[in-house]
């Protein structure tokens, strides 16, 4: 029945086919997985092949073959324009197939592709076309497009660019996102050296070596480096590369990624620095606890000792002598507690507000405060704060630091020469340094290097040595985030370099 119908409905009435071949053609047409339609513009008569019904899931004739059915029931309303345009746009002989959605009998809209052609030999009144189901293909295509979009979005969100080095030619291929990270126009061709030049100078050699090793020895690399974009933004990036090797074990391509990790890296770095700060503070606290236990213990031990001796003797002179020692223990205990108090004060004063202090005026005040010491030794003191005259600091700290260093320099001056003391500031990039130099007896740093700033560490048989000044000084400096370093030569002098901020 479908054969007759196909023949009936289709315009095979012209003459170049024999009946046999017509029948044969109709059979083929009905059995291929395609539908054929024909439409007469003048009469508006429409014809469908059996395959047309089958494609949509209908038995031939199950739905009315009419314009109305097609346009109002089968064709998806959004695709009407496309289809109508294809029908009316028949000027060019070569027209592209249109892709439209048609309603199938039982599984909703499917994608179909239809050719749209005019009979060349009739008077251009009839349009025909073949229609095939492209649903799976279209779905895959849409999915691919969606995947591409997802992929691009993911790369964009991850701020991830990929690039390749071809081992033989050393030609580079850079993805769009790589150019985005570089802040470059995508047309620019880059060489390996040019890519490396985007990294900060201190990191270039590292990357160069990593890329060379990847190319020559097939070693992958994974680095975190500082990068400067074409628009001069400095950011941390992850640079990672994996060599692809051929069957002879030679690297043919290095596949690389570059990822903007600036946010997390900077957070990590700041975390690291707070961790260091905490570790330092913890060390200081531990040190403090040790000092408390050790120093107090030494005094209380002595006290206990003396009391026992006092009890053991009846001799009046002995008792008087012992008692004088008990008194002196009392005063050392007091001064130790005062020292500990000074250390505790550093931690509490740290919250005190910093204010802008003038080096010269504080230094002059300190000089005035210990004028008698200076005069007694006939010390020559120079200062030069011209490189940095002022700084925001805790005023009490600065006063204490300068006084401790100056007192120290005087205390350990060389007996054979006039003390010469120099204090000055240096400004280097973001840091301010305070330098303190003397020509005193110096400290044997090879022996005492790690102890110079410890508490109750004295290295000279100087009766005034208390072993507290430099300990306090270091604590004050470190509490404000600075550092102190010492250089010294025995019998030549000592130089303290303080990084203030």
């Amino acid at each position, binding site marked *: 029945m479908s054969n007759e119908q196909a023949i009936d409905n289709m315009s095979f009435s012209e003459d170049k086919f024999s009946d046999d071949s017509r029948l044969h053609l109709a059979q083929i047409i009905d059995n291929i997985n395609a539908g054929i339609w024909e439409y007469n513009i003048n009469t508006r008569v429409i014809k469908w092949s059996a395959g047309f019904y089958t494609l949509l899931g209908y038995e031939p004739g199950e739905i009315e073959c009419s314009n109305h059915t097609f346009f109002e029931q089968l064709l998806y309303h959004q695709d009407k324009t496309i289809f109508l345009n294809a029908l009316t746009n028949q000027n060019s002989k070569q027209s592209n197939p249109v892709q439209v959605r048609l309603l199938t009998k039982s599984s909703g809209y499917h994608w179909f592709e239809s050719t749209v052609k005019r009979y060349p030999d009739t008077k251009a009144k009839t349009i025909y076309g073949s229609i095939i189901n492209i649903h799976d293909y279209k779905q895959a295509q849409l999915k691919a497009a969606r995947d591409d979009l997802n992929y691009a979005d993911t790369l964009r969100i991850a701020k991830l660019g990929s690039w390749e080095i071809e081992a033989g030619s050393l030609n580079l291929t850079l993805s769009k996102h790589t150019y985005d990270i570089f802040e470059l126009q995508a047309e620019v061709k880059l060489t390996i050296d040019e890519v490396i030049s985007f990294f900060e100078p201190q990191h270039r050699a590292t990357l160069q070596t990593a890329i060379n090793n990847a190319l020559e020895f097939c070693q992958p690399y994974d680095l975190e480096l500082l990068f400067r974009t074409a628009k001069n933004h400095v950011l941390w990036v992850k640079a990672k590369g994996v060599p692809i090797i051929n069957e002879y074990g030679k690297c043919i391509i290095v596949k690389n990624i570059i990822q903007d990790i600036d946010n997390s890296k900077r957070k990590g770095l700041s975390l690291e620095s707070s961790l260091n700060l905490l570790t330092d503070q913890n060390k200081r606290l531990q040190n403090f606890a040790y000092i408390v236990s050790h120093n107090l*213990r030494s005094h209380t031990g002595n006290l206990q000792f003396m009391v026992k001796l006092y009890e053991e003797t009846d001799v009046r002179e002995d008792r008087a002598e012992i008692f004088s020692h008990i008194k002196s223990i009392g005063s050392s205990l007091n001064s130790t507690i005062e020292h500990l108090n000074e250390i505790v004060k550093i931690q509490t004063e740290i919250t005190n507000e910093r204010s802008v202090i003038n080096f010269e005026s504080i230094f002059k005040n300190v000089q005035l405060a210990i004028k008698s010491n200076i005069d007694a030794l006939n010390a020559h003191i120079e200062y030069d704060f011209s490189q940095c005259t002022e700084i925001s600091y805790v005023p009490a700290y600065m006063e204490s630091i300068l006084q401790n260093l100056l007192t120290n320099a005087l205390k350990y001056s060389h007996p054979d020469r006039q003390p010469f003391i120099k204090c000055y500031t240096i400004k280097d990039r973001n840091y301010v340094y305070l330098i303190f130099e003397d020509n005193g007896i110096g400290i044997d740093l090879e022996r005492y290097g790690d102890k110079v700033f410890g508490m109750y560490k004295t290295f000279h048989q100087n009766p005034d040595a208390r072993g507290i000044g430099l300990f306090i000084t270091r604590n004050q400096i470190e509490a404000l985030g600075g550092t102190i370093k010492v250089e010294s030569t025995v019998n030549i002098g000592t130089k303290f370099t303080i990084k203030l901020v």
Partner: protein
Amino acid sequence: MIDLNTCIIDNNSTYVYGFKKMISLKNAGQQVTHFNNGVEAIDYLKNPLNAFNLPDIIFLDINMPVMNGWEFMNEFVEIKSQLRKKISIYILSASADINDIERAKNISDISDYILKPVDWCRLEEIFNSLQMAG
């Protein structure tokens, strides 16, 4: 009790006073030599003039300026073969730091680690054991 030539190396003058006083109260004739730090003690031990007046026992503090107890021990190990006498060394320190105690244990020339202050009974024990050995 045979007098032992006793030496204390410590820079804490109050403690040294007490140490000497305790010995003199208990045993009037015993000689106690005192040095403020390791260097003074080494200089004394090395001096040939003192060869016949070396201590039998040294009580050594750890924390001292110029040369501390550990540094003294390093020097002592170098010169001990040249000494005419075997000298027993006891650490006598206020440091209860486990690191110090462990460190002393690992030095074979140190007989024991005594925490300050020390009572007479403990000292007597030490003196007696030395006399028995001698």
